[in-house]
């Protein structure tokens, strides 16, 4: 990449130092969690929280996984998050495509409504939302949570995708029209492959947010068998209370899918944030 300006050696050192300090601040708690999750008992965690474990005990993970019913929570979280990803990417990209490329009377108003959704937090609408979900008989079901979480992610997703789609040259779609493609074929075969970075960004944001969402499942779910991992962690705390080494293991298990998702999508994600869909 072309350098905008060159740093002097001293400036270089200062900048690198600041970055290192920042990285340390971010990594430190995770490091502590990893260390303590591998300690054989609670005593070691209390006595020397920053020391290495006397015995590296991987059993904590197994115990947290099986003993605390993590499989169910994990599966529920996976179902909720993946469904949200599919729903949001599909609905937001088709919505953005229609708003940008097939404008109709009221499409600007529709876009305005989505933008309001970006500004207004969903929690303000919790009471009416609860009534809606209840009247749909979707309380205490995964589907209810999936729909509410997807809807809460839609505004941001539509915002990102419309911005990206506006940068895709319209001549490509004209060419596809001349080739006889119908609107859905244009969307699916021409547009979707071009906005992959934006889709990856949306998918990643949706996945991370719905995986980490605590509040919405808390409101809409009651039975433990439907709990996602965030609510599961509360159950876990109730059950194991002060068993910090097991708690840390549980937290780390919860972190893994987010990290994997980020690693998988990171290249596209960064492209999506920086490139803005410029044509070649």
């Amino acid at each position, binding site marked *: 990449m072309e350098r905008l300006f060159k740093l002097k050696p001293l400036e270089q050192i200062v900048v690198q130092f600041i970055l290192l300090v920042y990285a340390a601040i971010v990594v430190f708690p995770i490091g502590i969690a990893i260390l303590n999750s591998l300690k054989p008992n609670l005593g070691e965690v209390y006595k020397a929280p920053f020391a290495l474990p006397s015995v590296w005990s991987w059993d904590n993970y197994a115990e947290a996984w099986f003993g605390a019913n993590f499989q169910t929570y994990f599966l529920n979280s996976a179902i909720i998050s993946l469904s949200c990803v599919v729903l949001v990417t599909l609905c937001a990209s088709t919505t953005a495509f229609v708003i940008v490329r097939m404008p109709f009377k009221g499409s600007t108003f529709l876009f305005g409504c989505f933008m309001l959704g970006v500004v207004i937090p969903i929690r303000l609408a919790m009471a009416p939302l609860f009534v809606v979900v209840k009247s749909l008989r979707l309380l205490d079901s995964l589907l209810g949570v999936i729909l509410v979480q997807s809807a809460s992610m839609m505004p941001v997703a539509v915002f990102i995708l419309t911005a990206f789609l506006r940068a895709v040259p319209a001549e490509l779609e004209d*060419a596809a*029209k001349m*080739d*006889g493609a119908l609107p859905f074929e244009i969307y699916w075969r*021409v547009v979707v492959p071009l906005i992959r970075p934006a889709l990856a960004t949306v998918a990643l944001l949706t996945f991370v947010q719905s995986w980490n969402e605590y509040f919405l499942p808390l409101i809409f779910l009651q039975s433990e068998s439907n709990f996602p991992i965030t609510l599961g962690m509360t159950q876990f705390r109730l059950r194991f209370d002060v068993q910090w080494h097991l708690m840390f293991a549980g937290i780390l298990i919860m972190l893994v899918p987010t990290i994997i998702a980020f690693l998988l999508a990171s290249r596209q994600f960064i492209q999506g944030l920086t490139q803005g869909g410029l044509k*070649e």
Partner: protein
Amino acid sequence: MAAITIRNLDKAYGKTRVLHGINLEIADNSFVVFVGPSGCGKSTLLRTIAGLEEKERGEILLDGRDISDDAPVDRDVAMVFQSYALYPQMSVAENIGFALSVAKEPKATIEQKVTDVSKLLRLDDYLARKPSALSGGQRQRVAIGRAIVRDPKVFLFDEPLSNLDAELRVEMRLQIAQLRRRLGATFIYVTHDQVEAMTLADTIVVLRSGVVEQVGSPMELYHRPVNQFVAGFIGSPKMNFIPAGQLFGLDLKGAATIGVRPEHLLLDPNGPLKGIVRTVENLGAVSYAYAALPDETLVTIALPPDHSISVDQPLTLSIVPGRVWRGKFKGEDVLAARYLRSMVIAPYTFSAEGMILPTFASVRVFDLQPAAAK
């Protein structure tokens, strides 16, 4: 057969009217070029023929069939876009075969047609490549291939060479001309490039502000423009427009303007026009001098390659007899008209007072050598 008839075609974007009652006859197997300045509606007209823009009023007939309400794909026309508009995620073969795969043609047929087209356009070595791995000229050929593979009756080109460098543009121009001879289809081509228009076209349509100004063969437009706009637009360097009074060293306010092409201004010690050279451009085979007349009108003069003209040199110029284009003359331009008459033996009559008769005041081409031009 692929003859296009356009009748009373109107088009507006909101309140802005971009095409005003366009009427055109495009013959089968002809190469028609739409030219005009930016914003004159030439691309809009092309896109309306393609079906990418909806007309407001009027008809577009292809071989007598009204296609103006058909979907683009049902019109039997194919289009090549200015930016090539290749699908970046698809290979060359997929790009060329896209229309066929949308039409759900059998795979073997698609492959066969793609191979045929790629051979015709010498793209067979690049079929597996993505557009990003191709040069500008190759990309343009893929875009043309995508149009050919559909075997349309009419090809539409929207400034297809404007993104190429000068050398490649010449090469592609020749290839398009060859392709046209081979395919024997009707070509409609939009450009703002004079040379492309003059070299490729059988017929040029000059547009201004959504109105057809003149339709004719390149030479017809060059020698017999119907108005000052066409006279100034066709030809490069453009025609000189000289206030008629300058012929006598007079400043005739509101007087008529005459048009003279740079190659029809001659260095002549007895000539009526006086000027001072401001710039000289030596291009090799031809050179151009830009001289300022006493009223600061800048005129372009084509010079032979072995000229000895230099900057700031005073010049006297005359006009090749019969090579003056004139616009509207008013009564006070008698002197200019007399001069023109003396030069070109105008086939026009004058009144006893030396006033010009109304016939002379109409806009007509002043191609005066052959008597038949009347």
